[in-house]
């Protein structure tokens, strides 16, 4: 590859949006680039839908010049299961077991948001202890997801031990979930009205604490192996920079936005459950590259550990965990519409729900955080990146194809 051409392509990547580009009829991300594939200069390959670096089933159609990506098109639809449509034909209680399947690593957010939307429309107030347990569950699953995600991030750059540690430690958290909810991956625990059951016994917080300590120890090792690693630094620093201006333009949320220095966190901006009563700071970065995002996620793990400890300290010891619903087989929710949102490890997730007073939701729309990250944004970020770094870049955005397609 001639270095001049490469620098040109890199310039495309580095261009920042200006007022002319913001013309909604001709946005820069919709520009079609033409490549003469017959010239022999370019090579088109598919990255996915089956690829270990693609977190789920999603394809990137890459045009390469040498081993540098000059064009990227994202293709989704391989994992479409039609959850939103399925919900329209299911009674409210019957939606409860399927929503969690919208996201494998963090199913509980779907359960929570679905329940919260129904509760808001039906005017149900969840008992206090139920709210605390919900918060606990959400933080625990954030922890599990981030731990595995950090491992995935390292694994995508060839640092497999971190991946193994991450998955193993996630399993310790899943053990806790098995105790609390009866399920390991899909918990089906946060039900409209509260949570299904209280803690299995009084020793449960103690067992959680043991796992938290294991994780703290793990983070020390990960710092040595991953963040103080010359190779990892060399490959990730400066890779996949997201300009702060893009955050609003692309609808970027979560760690991806915070790594660019933009303070967005639903837990702070629009506190739900008991987050107002918890003491924590928003974690902000500035470099906005893959390294920065990984670093922030490590900090988020430590933050979650802190939050879980706070929850056990502050939650009421006794009380109802759920209120009785009317007969769920004929449960009618009054007509209305609502949008509820929560901060997942990947960013803002939201449920928009419309009801018409019948036993079925009229329309449910799920806003997955990955929807904006993995489709339009990735197309822009991948340009100018070496083919070997595409998987790592994708993981750094924490894309989750199931929530793109719902």
């Amino acid at each position: 590859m001639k270095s001049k051409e490469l620098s040109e392509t890199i310039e495309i990547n580095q261009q920042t949006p200006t007022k002319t580009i913001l013309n909604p009829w001709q946005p820069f991300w919709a520009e079609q680039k033409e490549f003469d594939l017959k010239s022999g200069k370019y090579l088109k390959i598919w990255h996915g839908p089956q690829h270990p670096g693609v977190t789920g089933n999603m394809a990137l159609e890459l045009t390469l010049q040498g081993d540098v990506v000059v064009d990227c098109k994202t293709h989704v639809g391989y994992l479409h299961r039609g959850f939103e449509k399925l919900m329209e034909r299911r009674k409210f209680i019957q939606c409860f077991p399927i929503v969690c399947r919208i996201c494998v690593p963090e199913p509980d957010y779907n359960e929570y948001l679905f329940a919260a939307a129904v509760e808001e429309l039906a005017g149900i107030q969840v008992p206090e202890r139920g709210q605390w347990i919900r918060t606990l569950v959400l933080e625990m699953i954030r922890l599990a997801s981030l731990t595995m995600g950090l491992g995935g991030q390292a694994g995508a750059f060839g640092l497999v031990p971190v991946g193994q540690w991450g998955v193993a430690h996630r399993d310790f958290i899943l053990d806790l979930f098995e105790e609390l909810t009866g399920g390991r991956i899909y918990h089906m625990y946060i039900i409209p009205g509260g949570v299904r059951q209280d803690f299995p016994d009084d020793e449960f917080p103690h067992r959680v604490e043991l796992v938290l300590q294991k994780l703290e120890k793990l983070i020390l090792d990960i710092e040595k192996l991953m963040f103080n690693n010359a190779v990892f630094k060399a490959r990730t620093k400066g890779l996949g920079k997201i300009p702060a201006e893009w955050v609003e333009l692309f609808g970027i949320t979560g760690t991806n936005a915070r790594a660019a220095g933009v303070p967005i966190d639903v837990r702070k901006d629009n506190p739900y459950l008991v987050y107002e009563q918890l003491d924590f700071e928003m974690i902000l970065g500035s470099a906005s590259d893959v390294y920065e995002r990984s670093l922030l996620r490590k900090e988020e793990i430590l933050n979650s550990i802190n939050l879980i400890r706070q929850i056990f300290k502050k939650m009421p010891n006794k009380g109802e965990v759920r209120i009785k619903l009317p007969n769920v087989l004929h449960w009618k929710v009054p007509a209305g519409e609502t949008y509820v949102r929560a901060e997942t490890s990947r960013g803002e997730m939201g449920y928009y729900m419309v009801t018409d007073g019948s036993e079925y939701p009229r329309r449910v729309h799920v806003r997955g955080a990955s929807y904006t990250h993995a489709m339009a944004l990735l197309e822009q970020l991948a340009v100018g990146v070496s083919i070997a770094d595409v998987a790592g870049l994708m993981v750094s955005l924490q894309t989750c194809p199931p929530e793109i397609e719902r």
Partner: protein
Amino acid sequence: MSLKDVLSPFSAWKRTLEKPFTIKKPITEREGEDRYRGFHVNDIEKCIGCGTCEEICQNEAIDMVESYPITANKGDSGLRPQIDYGRCCWCALCVDVCPTGSLGMSNDYIWVTPNPDEWVFKPGIDEKEWKDDDKGYRRTEEAWLLDPEQEPMPVLEPEVRKNTFKEMAKGYQVTMALEEASRCLECGICIEACPTHMDIPEYIRAIRENRLEDGLKILYDTNPFSESCGRVCTARCQDVCVLGHNGEPIAIRWLKRYITDNTYEKRNEILGIGKPLPESDKKIVIIGGGPSGLTAAFYLRNYGYQITIYEKHDKLGGMLRYGIPEYRLPKEVLDREIKTILDTGVEVKYKVEVGKDVSLKELQETYDAVFISVGAQKGTEMPIEGMDTLGVLIGVDFLDRIAEGERPDLGEKVIVVGGGNTAMDVCRSSVRLGAKEVQVLYRRTEQEMPANDEEIEEAKEEGVKFEFLTSPVKISRKGDKLQVECIRMKLGEPDSSGRRRPVAIEGSNYVIEADTCVMAIGQKVDSEMAQQANIKTTRWGTFDIDPTTLQTNVKNVFAGGDCGFGPDDAIRAIADGKKAAYFINKFLTKKGEPLID
């Protein structure tokens, strides 16, 4: 790049010396947690096959299937869940909704089979490695999705109702009815238990959807006495209601009443009564205008036949009028309901007693078909000394007199003998007639009492005293008081009805003093007319009929209700009336062909 960054990753080597996270034998070394949701278990003795699990399963993984050796029974559909693990998502909603609490999930961690057919099985019936009592997910009180409490019926306070024959239950308000109707699981177990097989889930659904007119039509499909039944039915449906297993059953009777209470003004219009019916030249006579006879009249009239009812009294209604006191079934309600039946165009001959004023033989020859529904009107007398003493009354006659408007003076203390619903009506009527002390004597214990629990409870609220395991042996008069000599009983071996037979304890006689003593120990059928047409009767005096078709040995004569099967409740009589209408129609339209295919 610093040297530290180059060397630091090598620290990971220290982990090679650590114990691995994984365990070698996960099945033996690590058991599933208590709440783990593994494969299903089902206590098939507890399960009644209501199919609520099938209803709630959003994956349609559960099918209710016939399962040897389980057979259908009262309150049991005979079906059991079969689960397809290709569809199951282990959400355990089926467990959390299970009304009986039979369904659960084992904590079996890993089970696998190469045979795909084995992934579809009936838990509890098909042998599996895990057992019912193994650990695993079970329904807890806090996770139960159903509401075990019935919406209470507003009733008059005991102190108020003691002094009046005014109707006691006030009826559901809209919100109460909706609340109660929403508890229904639509399993349909009740349909089978109801003698006339009313489509209960369907009319409860009509209430939920506020389609009361449709609800009324559904009621009249099977029961033209829905308004009365909504008040006084013995509600066998509620006895088997699936919610009754771990809570209170649906108040089916009150919901039925709710429909009729809110539609009676427009009843004829809704049901289209008065519109031309198909006309047939065949004539049918019905003897006895009680619930059974009138029901038969209603349905036969709708088939188009000319109906004549012969009634002994000057009013229709039979036992509903003369056997049930005003506070449970106001006469006004009964009258308007009978009017609906008569409005279809039924002719009635009052004050004619078949057998005396007109012979059965004559009717049988003049009409195309005869339905006998004379009921069991004669009260049974106890074979003891002193039955003819002044102050000793027979239960049904007593109620009859009250129904006619009499308000006899019973004195201060009344003794009622018997444990059935008639005894309850008698004792509660006595309270309303001003008796200071009412005592019920029953020869078995409260457990064996055939009266409805609700009636017993309400009688207690009204101050009625119960004396169990006792029976009168002799009644005499001393001055202006009755001397009722009783003997204590104990329970012996179970008899043919499954209840334990009471046995007298020798020498335990004692005497109770009272002003009045009412015998409510049962009724008999008066079937003297049978001889006139050579109809066979049984040794209990009932007509000898085919239990399915209700046909007697004389082909065009049918009999049903209390006079066909012995004294029973109103709904049984109504069911017989409906059945008789069906078979009489079949008999008249398909002459010569057998009635049962």
